[in-house]
């Protein structure tokens, strides 16, 4: 087992898993407590347009996804808040629109798209060093913005109307938070892929939420859980030669179900005592 660590691709895979856990532990906690799961799913799927654009322009598809996910975050946030379209309708439309653009771009690109599958479902064993650096930078940005805006993000997550009355510019703060979701999506693309991103964003915080009453502790616990899930998933996928992204999600889901079962058992026992 230990000799595996000598391989560069394994080192990269472990680093990618850890970096992914940090982003999704912090931002995922906001996604879960503010109930932004569907808009986050929309942002991640719409970023497929950027993957396609990357192929078309011959640049790194992840860079394309970065611009597309940021753009769709701002667009979705604005359309859901400032137009008469209902939130889930506009999310659904923009979600599909982004994916359609991706399909068209890929069709227009010369040749065919060899590792398209890994952008959709992730492949943690093929993360290049340049992407690790990008993930590191994005994590740094996410961490810094959250430290600076911690009380505003927490306030609008808890009670938007009161935050507005208390003097917070709710809409810009909300857009900023969505942009951080967009960055998180980009951090996670290589690990679990666009389609599975939403699971890794929500499962660790949803698990942690059952055990703590503090948002900060929830974030820390989510990061630790995420690191365990990605490492365990990576190891299992290597061991059985199965898709890494899907394995990570499978491991996380099983852990979540187990924790739900455990919590309800403990509660039942407490009541019967």
């Amino acid at each position, binding site marked *: 087992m230990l000799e595996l660590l000598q391989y560069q691709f394994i080192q990269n895979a472990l680093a990618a898993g850890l970096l992914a856990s940090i982003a999704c532990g912090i931002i995922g906690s906001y996604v879960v*407590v503010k*109930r932004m799961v569907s808009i986050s799913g929309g942002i991640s799927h719409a970023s497929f347009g950027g993957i396609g654009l990357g192929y078309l322009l011959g640049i790194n598809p992840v860079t394309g996804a970065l611009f597309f996910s940021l753009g769709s975050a701002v667009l979705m946030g604005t359309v859901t808040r400032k137009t008469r379209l209902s939130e889930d309708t506009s999310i659904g439309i923009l979600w599909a629109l982004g994916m359609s653009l991706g399909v068209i771009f890929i069709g227009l690109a010369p040749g065919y798209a060899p590792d398209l599958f890994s952008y959709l479902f992730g492949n943690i064993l093929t993360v290049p060093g340049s992407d690790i650096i990008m993930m590191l930078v994005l994590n740094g940005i996410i961490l810094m913005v959250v430290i*600076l*805006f*911690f*009380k*505003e993000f*927490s*306030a609008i*997550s*808890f*009670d*938007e*109307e*009161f*935050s*507005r*009355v*208390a*003097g*917070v510019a709710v809409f810009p703060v909300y857009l900023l938070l969505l942009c951080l979701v967009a960055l998180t999506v980009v951090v996670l693309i290589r690990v679990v892929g666009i389609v599975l991103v939403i699971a890794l964003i929500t499962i660790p915080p949803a698990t942690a*939420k059952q055990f*703590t*009453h*503090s*948002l900060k*502790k*929830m974030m820390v616990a989510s990061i630790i859980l995420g690191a365990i899930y990605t490492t365990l998933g990576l190891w299992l996928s290597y061991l059985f030669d199965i898709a890494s992204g899907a394995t990570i999600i499978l491991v996380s889901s099983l852990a979540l179900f187990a924790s739900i079962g455990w919590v309800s058992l403990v509660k039942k026992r407490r009541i019967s005592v």
Partner: protein
Amino acid sequence: MESIIKLENVRVNYGEVTALEEINLTVYENDFLGIIGPNGGGKSTLLKVLLGLIKPSKGKVRLFDTTPARARKKVGYVAQYRNFDPGFPINVWDVVLMGRLGHAGLLRGYSSEDKQAALDALKTVDMLDLKKRHISQLSGGQQQRILIARALTTKPGLLLLDEPMSNVDSVMQKEFYELLKELNKHMAIIMVSHDITAVSLYVNKVACLNKKLHYHGSRQLSAKDLETAYQCPVELIAHGVPHRIFKDHAP
């Protein structure tokens, strides 16, 4: 007595629907005003106009001699129902601190002044020993108290309460009203409610709202006011409207 609120001929439309019209209202610094009226009569809308969350399509709104949005720092607000998820990972202390968001400013944590204000507010509502509690571990009445504490952290000159009793069991209500009476010594209070009996017992002025506002600057409303507002006077009296609303020794 100084007036802190002045509404002149205010009208609010939601698309084609008129929610409020011809609203004229003056509130003074020591008023404890109860606003009653049927559901959908525009009670919450009126509070949101006072907070500057809804802009009227017509008319003038002044609070503390300025616009509602600018006056917000002097206004404490407790919304109808809980706007939040009781499972949210946050304790009493952090909820109350939130009241200081506008004072603390961007890119910084809460100052010691903010924390002192939150402590004072918790003391006022008698909830200091529960400050570490998670919000889901509080009763409805206790939750309402911390929401009031949150509104008090800015030391407001005006407190707006939207149906504050909807979440409080009847045993706790009396205690709650006593707290409001105590607070009224330092600030004006406007309380929106559909519970006419409770309102009539504790407030010192009553208005009735159903699109239009029926208000005489006193505790008295004529039977005709209620009749036009509710549009079904017989049923109202059958429900036992306390007579003191109709005729009372003038305050």
